[in-house]
């Protein structure tokens, strides 16, 4: 690791020193290609974010790809119904590493207003790992941009080597998550215990 003081000192003299990791992450964070799909009303805000007024191209993320094979970022924009959840997990599995997930809006995070309904998944984080969660119903385009910037910060800080390396750099971890099956009463299994542990329900003071 390069000493930060030395780096700053050299930069003042017009010499730019960077590690391979920094350059690699700088390139990655400024060319995030989202997967082009929307699930509900949040998708309208996502479209507005990509359009001229908010212009996601300013952050290098305007290239919406209609194929998971060419996408880096999955924006879960809207309510994930139980009928749709296996397809979302399958699309995630089909994306190449490194890949990231933004859960956009209350429904994608927790089921939102439909949480106790019979047909809505109580948050996509039950099946796939979520990097950034954006609350709102739906979130404003500014909020989605803020979430994108947060994701860029996360990518910038990811290590590629060593014990604290990012998930995608760890070849021992196959980033495939089991696709739930349609059951007689619910999805089976109702959550992936490897990535989602329900919090104990309790009242304060109990």
């Amino acid at each position, binding site marked *: 690791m390069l000493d930060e003081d030395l780096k700053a000192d050299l930069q003042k003299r017009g010499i730019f020193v960077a590690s391979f990791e920094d350059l690699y992450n700088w390139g990655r964070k400024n060319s995030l290609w989202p997967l082009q799909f929307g699930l509900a009303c949040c998708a309208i805000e996502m479209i507005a974010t990509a359009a001229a007024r908010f212009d996601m191209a300013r952050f290098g993320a305007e290239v919406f790809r209609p194929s998971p094979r060419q996408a880096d970022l999955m924006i879960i924009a809207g309510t994930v119904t139980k009928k749709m959840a296996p397809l979302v997990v399958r699309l995630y599995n089909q994306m190449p590493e490194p890949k990231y997930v933004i859960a956009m809006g209350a429904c994608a995070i927790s089921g939102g207003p439909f949480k106790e309904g019979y047909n809505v998944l109580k948050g996509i984080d039950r099946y796939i790992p979520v990097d950034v969660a954006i609350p709102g119903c739906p979130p404003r385009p500014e909020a989605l941009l803020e979430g994108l910037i947060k994701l860029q910060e996360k990518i910038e800080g990811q290590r590629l080597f060593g014990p604290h390396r990012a998930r995608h750099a760890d070849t021992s971890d196959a980033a495939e998550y089991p696709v739930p099956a349609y059951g*007689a*009463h*619910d999805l089976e299994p109702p959550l992936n215990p490897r990535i989602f542990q329900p*919090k104990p329900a309790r009242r304060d003071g109990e």
Partner: protein
Amino acid sequence: MNEVLEAIRAALPSAGVELLTNPGPSAQHSLLVRPEDAREVAEFLRDSLGFDFCSNVTGVDWLPRKVKETVVRRETAEGIATDVKETVEREIPGFLEAVYHLYSIAKKSGPLTLRVRTGNREADVSVPSLTPVWKSADFQEREAYDLFGIRFDGHPDLRRILMWDEFSDHPMRKDYVAPDDCEYEPTPHDEILARVKARTEAA
């Protein structure tokens, strides 16, 4: 509404049609048709009375319920007749109901509410499909089948439309219980609190 009822009774004297009045301020009365006569009545409504558009089909789940009625009984004791008021409980068995909202584009009238009831909620859940009469009932009868479990005999393609094919419940029925996974509530209360406590004790 009454003219429609009289026209049906005049043309189809054997059909069992009765008027269900709505006592509320909306006064949305409806026609109750026996399942075996529904197809015939529907065709008469479309062809002779001009109800050419079926805008809505839905279902209602009626649980078995008890009604209390006050009955006056005349008793004679020691030669003196007295009126005794008695409260009698009567049980109405449960049934499912398909509701059709009909309009006439030609006559600019409507809606006419048509109701068809099944025999019970468990085994006899069939009513005749009115999709052959009004094509627009197709998807909505499938929805009523999916969510209420009403079987529409004669429907060209009776499959689930919203839930997946492997699903076995009918979620809009009043006794439907969603799969229990209330694993996190910030402030559980009432029924959810009881479920959470039962789960904690079981674990």
